[in-house]
């Protein structure tokens, strides 16, 4: 099987694409009950995640190495792939009930898989071309997903906004890539780094262009991760999009942005001494602070979660200026836990949507009476987001912030400690709005009639919940996998305890 040998490394993408093509057709097979579509969608997701887990956690059956210089299969991409797949599982599980009454369900699942395909491409990309292609595959699918509920004004509006800003940002990204290509003469990230490290006359001469390229790239990728001030679309889109899709955007799409950012900055631009650490550090602090501050004053839970994920992006960005292996591991660990807790929280909201409770904060009043399960799950997700031990969010924030503390101690620069302090203070600030939701659920009076959570949504939530507890209580394995993933980046100082 020569062919197989050639494309084996593309196996995950191929499987996903296969199902992408199958699903719209399947739509016609299931006339009345469309739920089997979700089961079918889960097939590739579960299979692939099983493969990735056995590869990453148990060292069994590693993926075939890439045959092209554009993409690379390593622990880093594996971990991100796992995140995307797992979020996909959670989203798909909670979807059938949510879109029960909608048309074109086959396309819905197909688009989800397509978006995930794009994300996996980004995770593996080591070349700007592949990176851009991946970003666009994921991006365009999610534009469509955001507008999936065509009958709803808000869904359409979300899609429009997402599309306009998304298109604008991809133009920025592409222009930036073109400038990088012009300056360095290559689109391979590692090669760019090599060129910049030993600048030719042309490169020295075109420093302004490089600066522009860098800024454009920050803006373009900053859009994906919802970095302030490129975050404005996020709350609107998260609010308007169907809730499971909001979960997908917050928990997966944003992580794709980080995958790109890590690759480009930690490998590619490391050599560009434009002191970008300070810039990213400042933006990290601004992002978390602005996100949390605005989240406090929200009345819609989805908007609140959107701002909260803006803030979480700020935390993860700490990994960049610290720039050590340990910090990167911390960042990825937080990406992993954030995927569970944020998607879990969105799925609770989705479940509430399914049972017609609504998504205003006021709708949470007395939720404990109506559905103790939802209230409990939401409480755990929120506390985990706030970083309360022994939940997952605490473990990952701990590693992340401690990397900043460590590097500030040795070898410095010492201002990095302010990243940890800002993160810590912001965690306290975020507790304010999380605790308010908890208060609504447990301490306020609301409607009394109990609701029944549909089993598949419940399964999604239970899965996320279990992971939040498991990671929180036994972070050991996860930390070491993240460290392996970070180890895939050559040349980073270790910057943490062995």
């Amino acid at each position, binding site marked *: 099987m020569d062919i197989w040998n050639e494309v084996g490394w593309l196996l995950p993408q191929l499987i996903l694409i296969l199902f992408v093509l199958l699903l719209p057709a399947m739509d016609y097979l299931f006339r009345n009950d469309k739920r089997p579509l979700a089961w079918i969608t889960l097939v590739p997701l579960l299979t692939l995640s099983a493969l990735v887990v056995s590869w990453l956690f148990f060292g069994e059956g590693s993926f075939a190495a890439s045959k092209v210089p554009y993409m690379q299969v390593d622990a880093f991409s594996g971990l991100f792939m796992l995140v995307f797949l797992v979020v996909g599982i959670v989203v798909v599980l909670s979807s059938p009930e949510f879109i029960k009454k909608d048309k074109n369900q086959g396309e819905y699942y197909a688009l989800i898989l397509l978006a995930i395909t794009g994300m996996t491409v980004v995770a593996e990309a080591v070349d700007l071309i592949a990176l*851009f292609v991946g970003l666009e595959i994921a991006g365009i699918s999610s534009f469509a997903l955001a507008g999936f509920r065509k009958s709803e004004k808000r869904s359409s509006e979300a899609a429009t906004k997402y599309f306009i800003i998304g*298109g604008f940002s991809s*133009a920025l990204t*592409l222009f930036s890539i073109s400038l990088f290509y012009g300056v360095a003469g290559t689109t391979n990230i590692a090669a760019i780094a090599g060129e910049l490290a030993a600048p030719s006359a042309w490169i020295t001469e075109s420093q302004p262009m490089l600066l522009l390229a860098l800024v454009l790239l920050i803006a373009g990728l900053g859009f994906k991760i919802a970095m302030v001030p490129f975050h404005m679309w996020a709350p609107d889109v998260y609010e*308007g999009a169907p809730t499971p899709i909001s979960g997908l955007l917050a928990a997966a799409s944003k992580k794709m942005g980080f995958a790109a950012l890590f690759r480009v900055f930690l490998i590619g631009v490391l050599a560009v001494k434009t002191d970008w650490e300070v810039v990213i550090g400042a933006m990290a602090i601004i992002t978390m602070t602005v996100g949390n501050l605005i989240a406090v004053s929200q009345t819609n839970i989805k908007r609140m979660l959107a701002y909260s994920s803006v803030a979480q992006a700020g935390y993860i960005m700490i990994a960049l200026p610290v720039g050590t292996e340990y910090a990167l591991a911390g960042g990825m660990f937080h990406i992993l836990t954030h995927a569970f807790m944020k998607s879990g929280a969105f799925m609770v909201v989705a479940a509430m949507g399914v049972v017609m409770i609504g998504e205003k904060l006021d709708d949470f009043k007395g939720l404990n009476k109506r559905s103790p399960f939802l209230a409990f799950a939401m409480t755990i997700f929120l506390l985990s987001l706030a970083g309360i031990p022994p939940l997952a969010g605490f473990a990952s924030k701990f590693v992340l912030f401690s990397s900043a503390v460590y590097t500030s101690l040795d070898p410095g620069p010492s201002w990095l400690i302010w990243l940890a302090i800002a993160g810590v203070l912001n965690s306290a600030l975020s507790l304010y709005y999380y605790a308010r939701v908890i208060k609504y659920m447990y301490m306020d009076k609301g409607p009394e009639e109990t609701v029944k959570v549909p089993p598949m949504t419940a399964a999604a939530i239970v899965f996320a919940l279990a992971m939040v507890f498991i990671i929180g209580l036994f972070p050991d394995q996860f930390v070491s996998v993240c460290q392996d993933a970070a180890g895939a980046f050559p040349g980073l100082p270790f910057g943490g305890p062995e």
Partner: protein
Amino acid sequence: MIPIEYWVIFSSLLFCIGAYGVITRRNAIVVLMCIEIMLNAANINLVAFSAYHTTLHGVADTSGQVFALFSIAIAAAEVAVGLAIILSVYRRYQTIDVDKINILRW
């Protein structure tokens, strides 16, 4: 040969025009077109840099041109999805004036 700077300035101008259009034009279709202009500005860059590669870096390289092809394809997909979205928005709002599409805010 025309100096590479000319190309860069030209594409940058194009890019700025596109960006200006995205920010100021009310009509969603026009906004979409402006995004296309921005993408094309980047394409010009890619092609130009690819063509000048030997001058600038001493070796020939066509990956820029390949990249441009990719991006044209992507832009096409984007336009397709974009038009569909604009269409569905028009159905709900009876307008494609982006100023008026603002239920979701704050």
